[in-house]
């Protein structure tokens, strides 16, 4: 197991380095960064000055090394637009996005896994159909519309929950539901399909032949096997929720990292984009790594590889 974890760690680091190269290369992807920073009316002397000031005249590997070294120490450069250090810009917003993302994935898992299990226990029954209906609706309803509906119902008509802002935990309830409900159907369907398949397995019959209770057969023997692909899916969903929550953040006026990403793209604010891409990629890598470890713990066959 230790060997497996070590190999995963090495893999994760290699992937992270590759991603850092790509996100560094972004600086040059849209032409000479010095010209972009200098603006439209700059003279060649201004541009040369900026090029020297920002260090763009050094060899590329040196620039990358320098950039990476600083990034590892939390120095992600200065935003061109806000004229503020990128780190101080990102951290508070990342907190908002992280809170939302974690709440949403927990909500999605808590909703989807039991629903999937129950649906699989009685395939084609009313319960199963109901679960399917909930799932299809989750996939079909656009997040912004569901968000607006919830605001109308719970904030305006009932007045139970705030419609926007980040002041208290109550502000996160509606966004969590909207974002989580978007992720839940895929998880539910995978759980249901996994359970249905596993329940046909010979070892489930063996477990029943041992005289185990139905509950033990279901939860100890079936769910553990069925949940393995769900773990991998949830990791990807989690990464997606952190980076792709911009719609939900806009609807509820939560100023999170997704919203910041959208702003910096529209303003061509390279250092911020670069830092966000790097951070989101690191989250993906981290959650995938976590999922790998969790799966290896669940399924011993994976450990030997």
């Amino acid at each position, binding site marked *: 197991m230790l060997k497996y974890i070590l190999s995963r760690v090495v893999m994760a680091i290699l992937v992270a380095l590759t991603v850092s190269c790509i996100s560094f290369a972004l600086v040059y992807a849209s032409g000479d960064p010095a010209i972009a920073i200098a603006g439209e009316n700059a003279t060649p002397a201004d541009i040369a000055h900026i090029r020297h000031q920002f260090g763009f005249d050094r060899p590329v590997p040196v620039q990358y090394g320098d950039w990476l070294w600083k990034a590892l120490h939390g120095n992600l450069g200065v935003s061109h637009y806000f004229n503020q250090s990128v780190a101080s810009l990102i951290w508070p917003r990342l907190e908002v996005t992280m809170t939302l993302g974690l709440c949403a994935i927990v909500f999605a898992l808590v909703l989807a896994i039991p629903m999937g299990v129950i649906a699989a226990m009685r395939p084609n029954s009313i319960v199963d159909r109901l679960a399917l209906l909930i799932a299809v609706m989750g996939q079909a309803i656009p997040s912004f519309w569901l968000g607006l509906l919830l605001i109308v119902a719970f904030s305006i008509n009932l007045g139970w929950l705030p419609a926007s802002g980040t002041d208290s935990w109550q502000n996160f309830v509606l966004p969590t539901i909207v974002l989580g409900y978007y992720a839940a159907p895929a998880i539910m369907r995978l759980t249901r399909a996994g359970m249905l398949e596993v329940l046909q397995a*010979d*070892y489930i019959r*063996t477990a*029943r*032949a*041992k*005289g*185990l209770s*139905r509950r033990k057969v279901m939860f100890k023997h079936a769910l553990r096997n069925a949940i393995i692909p769900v773990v991998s899916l949830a990791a990807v969903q989690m990464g997606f929720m952190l980076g792709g929550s911009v719609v939900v953040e806009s609807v509820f006026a939560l100023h999170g990292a997704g919203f910041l990403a959208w702003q910096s793209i529209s303003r061509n604010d390279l250092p911020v984009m670069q830092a966000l891409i790097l951070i989101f990629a690191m989250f993906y890598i981290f959650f995938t790594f976590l999922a790998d470890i969790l799966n290896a713990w669940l399924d*011993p066959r994976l450990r030997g590889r």
Partner: protein
Amino acid sequence: MAETVLSIRNLTVDLPEGADRPHAVEGLSLDVRPNEIVCIVGESGSGKSITSFATMGLLPAALRPSAGEVLFEGADVLKMSEAGHARLRGNRMAMIFQEPMSALNPCYTVGDQIEEVFETHATLSRSARRKRVIALLEEVRLPDPERIYHSFPHQLSGGQRQRIVIAMALAMDPTLLIADEPTTALDVTTQMQILKMFRRLKEERGAGIMFVTHDFDVVAEIADRVVVMQKGRVVEQGTAEEVLNHPTHPYTRQLIDAVPRRTRAARETDAGAEIALRVQGLEKAFHTPRTLFSPARTVRAVANVDFTVRRGETLGIVGESGSGKSTLVRCLMRLTEPEDGAVWVGNQNLLETQRGNLRAYRKEIQIVFQDPYGSLNPRRTIGDQLLEGPTNFGVPRAEAWEKARELMRIVKLNDEALYRYPNQFSGGQRQRICIARALMVEPSILIADEAVSALDVSVQKEVLTLLREIRERMGLTMLFITHDLRVAAQVCDSVIVMEKGRIVESGPIDRVFAEPQAEYTRKLLSAQPGQGWEVPDLGVTA
């Protein structure tokens, strides 16, 4: 007469509507007494497994017992609640399954899985449970019980896993053991050890054992009494001696008559015929490259293999799983690239043929695989699949169609089968279609890779007869890969015995089986079940 452990009276289990018959099992009655092995034999679909599942309360939801009773130690299990029945399962009655590879949960150690039985049915401390498990592992003769206890199923071989399942079944010392084809998926030497274990269990523990099998050799090896089933009904039952040697029901007689004899069907072989296939120094090793975390590994799957086959001869290739039989076949057809050696078909060395020209020579060697269900494309008609080969080689469609009709007649199927889809045929029919498909391109060599292993004994007999007819009619050269020495003895002229990628013995089949030279051949032969039993000559006309 001793008290019965299990007494099934007029059991009927309904099939869902739309099945080919109304009942999976109909009016079945049988008894199992302590200290007795009762074998239920029958072909696939005869209802023998359904009977054991009904007793264990493990029937699929679609099947329901509709009449009769299953009395276990005097109480009718069909009338019990699910929880009540569960209290007996794994406790007073236990079951051993066919597929040891999938019968254990991959996520838990085997020690854990055996312990679960004690957790469910006994009140024992943790250390006491553990001690009992270790004792059980010793009883089923697993080496190094301490290590096995902490192993996961995927770290054990098929035979070892089956021993784990048996240990699990024995945990609470049940009075009734049900075994559903427990040795079918195992190699013959492992099978022998497991069969011996069943005999020992009967003697030492005095349990009643209901043993479901399709193999009459296994019946001959262990049965005290035999129940023969056909299409859900018991057609004959009696002592092993009666049923095996003096069967009375026509179906039993037909089944026993279909068991291959241990002697070769007499026929002429032309020792002077030209050599059809010559294999020289064939080598294939599988390399697992070194990674950051594990060293490189090399397994020699085919090691320096030499043999020749004459035109019209049938060469058997026998050996246990992992002996390299299948890799050898794949190398011969260059489905896998061998690393060294030569494969001469006529004057052409297949291994030196350019990839582009290979197609023309592939036509010379055709193959019939083990699984008749997986070998045909379910979405295309039989005709389409048969025509694909010859039309690829430029034969006009009309001509190929004529050929397909002729072959359908040869494999004893109707012409209109060409318009139908694979799912409309039984396993035996499909295998005949696969043979026809292989013959469509008029190969000079036909390889049968365990081609009859998945078939019921009576169907197996049909296919073997068909292969013999085709061989005589077309002068076909055949390579017959099998793990079943009875089948090999009947159809092959000569044989090579493989172990770990090497040929350990080769020669005319009569000589090799009568006077084996190699240690491994002797081991294989002595592990054959049912050696004391000669198939009686019943004079049944097939």
